[in-house]
């Protein structure tokens, strides 16, 4: 697990994220004279793993800092990707998506969007932002699951022209062609800060957006949006992820915990009781025998990687 405290303090746990500083050695220590992750960052800089190779790690500051061994390799300077026009004083990276080992999308607090392609061991950067994409803080960026050349971004702020959700079609060269997909009132994403989104891997027309007032969903590619906050407290959603195999949508809130919703049923069951067979049996599906424990449970003598069975 990779964890950012704030700024460029970044730690890595190989024991399933167990509590204790000893379990979280720093992979970037700002107390050192020359921190390995360089460049000024936002308070919580984006830290992402390569979706196709979890050894590759990227940290966004005023540049993209890359490491090929989960941050233990020292983020060699030669691996950095500079973004044209982003100096640290005028702009910083606020969203990253490490789509695969040869493709990264990056976006900034001032509404800039970049595409980084790797070929022959070198990265090339292309500017994607262009009118009418508003000049606002971009909190999240991701391509459509079936089309890496169509990218979606969500923005913070109020009174954003066109709304907070935008889609860009990326041509072979040059900037993207941007279209607002925030919907039209009364079926629009409300004019509040949007902090995260998740596109359904099974259907690129279904997008979940986490906003300051809950989760909103479109199932028609952004033409219409509806509130999807059933059961959620009245709280800002700061991150949202979809557990693909379990069809579970999970939302991280601003101080009111983590919430989840099953997507494989129209309504959540009123009551669903279960008794745990072991630490990974969460009562959703049959407990799987012999799965490896991803974290330690010392009182049960279970270490990371131990096999767990139904008994």
């Amino acid at each position, binding site marked *: 697990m990779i964890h950012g405290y704030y700024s460029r303090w970044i730690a890595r746990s190989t024991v399933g994220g167990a509590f204790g500083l000893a379990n979280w050695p720093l992979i970037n220590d700002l107390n050192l004279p020359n921190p390995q992750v360089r460049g000024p960052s936002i308070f919580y800089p984006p830290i992402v793993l390569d979706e196709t190779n979890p050894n590759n790690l990227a940290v966004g500051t005023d540049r993209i800092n890359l490491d090929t061994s989960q941050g233990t390799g020292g983020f060699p300077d030669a691996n950095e990707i500079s973004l044209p026009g982003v100096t640290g004083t005028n702009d910083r990276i606020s969203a990253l998506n490490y789509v695969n080992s040869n493709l990264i999308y990056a976006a900034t607090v001032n509404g800039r969007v970049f595409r980084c392609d790797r070929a022959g061991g070198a990265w090339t950067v292309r500017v994607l932002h262009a009118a009418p994409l508003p000049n606002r803080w971009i909190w999240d960026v991701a391509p459509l699951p079936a089309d890496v050349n169509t990218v979606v971004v969500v923005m913070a702020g109020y009174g954003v022209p066109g709304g907070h959700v935008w889609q860009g079609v990326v041509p072979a060269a040059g900037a993207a062609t941007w279209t607002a997909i925030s919907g039209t009132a009364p079926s629009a994403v409300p004019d509040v800060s949007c902090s995260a989104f998740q596109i359904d891997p099974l259907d690129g027309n279904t997008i979940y957006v986490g906003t300051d007032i809950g989760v909103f969903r479109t199932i028609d590619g952004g033409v219409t949006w509806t509130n999807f906050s059933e*059961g959620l407290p009245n709280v800002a959603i700061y991150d949202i992820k979809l557990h693909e195999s379990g069809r579970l949508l999970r939302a991280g809130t601003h101080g009111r915990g983590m919430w989840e919703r099953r997507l494989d049923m129209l309504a*959540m*069951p*009123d*009551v*669903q*009781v*279960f*008794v*745990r*067979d072991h630490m990974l*049996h*969460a*009562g*959703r599906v*049959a*407990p799987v*025998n*012999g799965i490896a424990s991803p974290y330690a449970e010392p*009182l*049960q*003598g*279970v*270490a990371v*990687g*131990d*096999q767990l*069975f*139904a*008994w």
Partner: protein
Amino acid sequence: MPEGSPPAYQTSLVGDVDYVFFESKLGHRNPQRGVVNRVYVQVHNRGIQDAQNVVVKLLSADATAGAPNLPPDFWTAFPGDPAGGLWTSIGAAQIIPVIKPTEPAILEWDWTPPMSIAQHSCLLVVIDNAADPIPPANKGFDIWALANAERHIGWKNVHVVNAVLGATFWTPLRFFGTADRLYSIRFSATTARGWQLGLLLPRVMPAGFTLRGMVRTQLSNPQRESLRRAVGDGIERLDTEALYQVRQPGRGGAIDRIVMGQEGITAMLMLAAPSTANRSGTLSVVQELDGRDLMGGSTYVLNVMRG
């Protein structure tokens, strides 16, 4: 494996056991014969409404020869006690009035296992609720199938081995078979490094099995003496000339292509604590059919104590 008498309870009353305590403080222990043990069961509710009047029933059984099936009248008698069978109810079924979606409930049973209870015993918990009942189609009698298919069922079959440095612990392991099928006995990789893990097979065994990550060795004299103390004259039924030992416990090992026969076999598992290091961990010994399908097994929590 008794821990002493009187037992040292981990908590005084069930009212003191909230779910945070349960998950962060309570550890597995073995039942102690002839004295009061406390069995705790945690029940969760993943729904969006409170669960009302959740029935929880707890049973135990001798698992020396494997966990037995439920008796034929188990489900018709539930939550009462079936008329026969090899499972014994522990106390009466309890009812949890309310389980909130965000807060699991903890129940406790006081259980005094008889002095005659087998060393290898297992516990079964069955929960049911009118708003989320066990589907009738799932109300079978095979424990293995139930535990794998039903989230209303919990099967606890963990053996805690507390061994002083350098001590050797022996425990019987029963394996099952049918004629003309080949099986594997697999030792999981374990973090309990420094332990010696081995298996003694019966004196009469069909040849032809192969070793993977294991090595054939001979019992040392102290090991032979500890085995004799553990099984007495039963040592004559074992092939004490061949101890099949896991070469590297951190990687695990297996005996493949082994024939169990119609009657199955009873082997002796050797768990020898290291003499210097103090490394705990879990070990699972599982039986697989054709090296593929999991048939069952046992999990051991290996703890080293200073003598």
